[in-house]
């Protein structure tokens, strides 16, 4: 079933955020599962911000994602 609009917005926000700042790969990566990548990257972000590491998109994590911030990624190359 389609997700409610609010949920969709939150997932899009999270995906965009993790791509930009944590190098979440775009689309499916060969045999790897996209959901696994998402969970791994979200854990990385939660560790960075000292949030509870759940690997899921909880309210606390979304709140940090919505904060005003610098555009430089938190991890990885920036060239």
């Amino acid at each position, binding site marked *: 079933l389609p997700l409610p609009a609010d949920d969709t917005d939150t997932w899009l926000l999270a995906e965009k955020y993790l791509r930009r*700042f944590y190098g979440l790969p775009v689309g499916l990566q060969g045999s790897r599962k996209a959901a696994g990548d998402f969970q791994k990257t979200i854990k990385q972000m939660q560790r*960075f*911000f*000292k*949030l*509870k590491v759940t690997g899921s998109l909880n*309210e*606390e994590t979304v709140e*940090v994602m*919505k*904060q*005003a*911030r*610098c*555009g*430089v*990624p*938190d991890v*990885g*190359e*920036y060239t």
Partner: protein
Amino acid sequence: HFPRKLKWNTNKLTFRILDYTPDLQKSDVDKAIRKALNLWAAVTPLTFKKLHTGTADIMISFGSGEHGDYNPFDGPNNLLAHAYPPGQGIGGDVHFDEDENWTKDSTAYNLFIVAAHELGHALGMGHSTDAGALMYPTYSYRTGFLLSEDDVKGIQELYGPNPNPTGVTPSPDSPKQCDPMLSIDAVTGLRGETMVFKDRFYWRLHPQMPEPDQILIKSTWPSLRNKVDAAYENPEKDQVIIFSGIRMWALNGYDIVEGYPKYIHKLGLPKKIRKLDAAVHISDTGKTLLFTDEEYWSYDEATGRMDSGYPRSIEKDFPGIGDKIDAAVYQYGFLYFFRDNLRYEYSYTHKKVWRVLPTNSILNC
């Protein structure tokens, strides 16, 4: 740092401001950038020369949306600015999002604070995980010397210290939530949440959030002091009173109530009291207890007067907690007293200490 620890191979750097934001006067932009550069210069051997033409190491500009580097901004809020690590061409350049409202104060995004952060990147600093560091990725308003020990350690690892130290003191790193030796400055409830104050920060504990948030006091209340001595909630008045030195502020929700700060002596405390150690409101009695050194006062919220017969000795009236406390809060029918790294659960009705816990247990440690 960035991968491969990118840095400039000279200590004599140049910068150029290519354009200006209409939000501020030109001179204010110049001042903010110069002040931000001076911050890093104070702790390193780096010097910064302003160029008016040609190519500088650090090119500074304001732009909206896609602004020429295929790394677009996103309109108001969220992304505020970005910068490139040291290198040729675009390396070291700093871009600010023109769609933000740039200010000199705390009313919107403070250009000096954002510039100081971005210039940190331009010099080779990556993001810090320390919420008190200037290089923490999210924006927060603050005052005083912006660099924390973490920032100074990072930049000095790249360029070394300033051979002529200016005597500035970096802010200490942010207090660690589960430090077994953690002591706190103040604690209060706020509409079902708990706020724990320590140094420049407070932790916000929300019943529906598993982990507390650590936030700079100045980031939420720019006009408050950097250190809170005591705080209490009066749920009947829906107010939180925050004490710092001889002043107190009232909060309604997160907003400071008009007419504050007021002097703590307005409560009826003698003038010789220059600061409180702790404050707690007992909702069952309507009394607020105010602790200072080895004594405490009782303030009647209904009459707005100090009760007679006070001050009284903390040690005598609350046996088992010692003669001095750091903070206190009334929760679940217990009085919790904090002293150094210990938290005493005190039964008000039985007049005895029920349990002794570590201070950090209030932060779910």
